């Protein structure tokens, strides 16, 4: 099989997918980042190479997510794009005519508005990460339930309790208070879902015209309690695409297909990178009062990338070494 790889390196998960020439997802891998993005990208690629049928060929690779630059350098990506564009591209392919995309990931949440297949507006959460996946994770752990059961339990609720959702810290103390008053777990979880939806619509969705078809994606879309809370708040049916938790990676792969078709070749370094040794480190440049934190990535002891310097002294030095 010939196809394209898409990699989405997020704060909580790393998603790697393989699409065929027609843009259909052939395989998807969802891994927890566990604070080691490089090792997990390597692990994911190894897993993918084992699962692909013999004789498969990678014609292009795309990277997205907050760790896109790091992933792009390690695998040799053809397209490195921000996650908003990647999500919009993937969803318009999977759900033609989509007008609103609600995306809630590990630490980011976004809303993307499309009209006639074109992005017309978007917003991301600002300084606050309340209502994103990592908060739900943390609460599930505190209540000693698995995050996979969270939504199912919330659906059992007869009457949800009201939780203050403005701030994750206050939401937690409010939940503790409701538990101590004797409210049932399903009602508290349902209340938490409603609070998060309220917070999302007030912050991220502020002033946006939400029209059907509405697509909900990102890791949090696995939570049926959140889906129901969105349906109730918006009064619209919510669609969750089949590969909802890897849509960013799908978009990256579609972008890689476009770029590779234009260039006619791919920069992909091959699956062999899974066995190489990568190290990252940073140092503070003493050159001026900016005190930039310069980050460098080494591949088997050889420096392959540097960034973080404002003046370009370190990153350009590397480029010159490469030429000579």
């Amino acid at each position, binding site marked *: 099989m010939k196809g394209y790889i898409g990699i989405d390196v997020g704060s909580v998960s790393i998603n790697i997918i393989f699409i065929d020439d027609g843009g259909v997802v052939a395989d998807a891998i969802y891994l927890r980042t566990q604070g080691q993005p490089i090792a997990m990208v390597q692990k994911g690629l190894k897993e993918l190479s084992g699962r692909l049928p013999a004789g498969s060929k990678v014609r292009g690779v795309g990277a997205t997510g907050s760790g896109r630059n790091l992933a792009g350098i390690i695998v040799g990506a053809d397209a490195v794009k*921000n996650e908003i*564009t990647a999500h919009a591209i993937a969803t318009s392919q999977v759900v033609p005519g989509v007008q609103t995309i609600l995306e809630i990931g590990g630490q980011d949440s976004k809303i993307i508005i499309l009209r006639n297949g*074109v992005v*017309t*507006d*978007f917003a*991301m959460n600002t300084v606050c990460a309340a209502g994103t996946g990592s908060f739900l994770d943390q609460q599930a752990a505190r209540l000693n339930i698995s995050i996979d059961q969270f939504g199912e339990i919330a659906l059992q609720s007869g009457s949800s309790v009201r939780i203050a959702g403005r701030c994750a810290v206050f939401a937690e103390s409010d939940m503790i208070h409701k538990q101590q008053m004797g409210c049932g777990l399903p009602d508290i979880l349902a209340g938490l879902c409603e609070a998060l939806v309220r917070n999302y619509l007030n912050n991220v969705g502020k002033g946006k015209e939400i029209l059907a078809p509405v697509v909900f994606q990102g890791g949090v879309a696995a939570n049926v309690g959140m889906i129901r809370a969105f349906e109730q708040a918006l009064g619209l049916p919510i669609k969750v695409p089949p590969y909802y938790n890897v849509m960013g990676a799908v978009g990256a792969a579609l972008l890689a297909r476009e770029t590779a078709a234009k260039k006619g070749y791919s920069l992909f370094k091959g699956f062999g990178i899974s066995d190489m040794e990568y190290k990252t480190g940073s140092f503070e440049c003493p050159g001026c009062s*900016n*005190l930039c934190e310069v980050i460098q990535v080494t591949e088997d002891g050889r420096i392959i990338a540097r960034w973080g310097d404002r003046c370009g002294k370190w990153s350009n030095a590397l480029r010159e070494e490469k030429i000579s």
Partner: protein
Amino acid sequence: MKIGIPRSLLYYYYYPLWRVFFEELGAEVVLSSHSAKGILAAGLKNAVDEVCLPVKMFYGHVLDLVGKADMIFLPRIVSVEKREYICPKFLGLPDMIRCLKNLPPLIEVDINLYKNNKDFYSAVKNIGNIFTKNHLDIWGACLKALKAQKKYFKLMQMGLMPSEALALIEGRVEDKSLPDGEKMNIALLGHPYNIYDPYISMDIINRFRAMGAVVATAEHVSGKIVRNYAARLPKKLFWSLGNRMIGAAFHYLEQPGISGMVHVAAFGCGPDSMTGGIIERYAHSSGIPFLNLTLDEHTGEAGVMTRLEAFLDMVRWRKAAFGS
């Protein structure tokens, strides 16, 4: 005598004026270093908690001048335009700064043009008296300073950024032709001390330029146009800088060559939350892509880059789909 001027806040508007004025009276002008991590760190450590990011940065710049200057120029700027005020933080600036220890003497003088322009000369005379008792010399220096200021504003209205206009005035660069406005024109609105300080704004202007956009700011628009357009609001805003942003925004919304508009707000700035909201509504009703960017002392550049990239993708996409 060395007069220190902090490279912050209204430096971006009035530096040429005061530089010429002090130099004409025989003083030497020293600037604080460019904004950097160390300067912000000193500012954060010493500033009161409630002020906005640019004022915290200003503290750092004042401290940077200790040991470099014999006196620090710190006027209390109340109003620079008839029947308008400057943000209240400028009124309290000398009082806040005076609490810092071991500062050289401050040149504090009130500048209040709320009623009329004549009050300007009395302020200038008070400053001039530090150096000479000769009124004619002060008057002459004042005229030359005003002329330099006029030239600076004129250069900015021709499309230069403050740093470029200053470089041209000081003969550091050759006079070269202006970039043509054929590519993607983005209107960037925000307080001058936020958008022109490359450290605070994470170098937003050059990032946009590197991604192929031509940046137009409120300072590129003449005062007359700004006043005419700002008068469309049912009630005049109190703040001069806010009026400039609103007037320029309304002007740019009517320019067919402008493909997108970005408003930069400092986290915690009251006037910015007003002007940003007003501009967003007008931009939405005229169908121009709009992005609101909030800056704080957070050094995560990934978030800013994601938003800028996604915004330009959206602008390009819309242009390709609907024409300009």
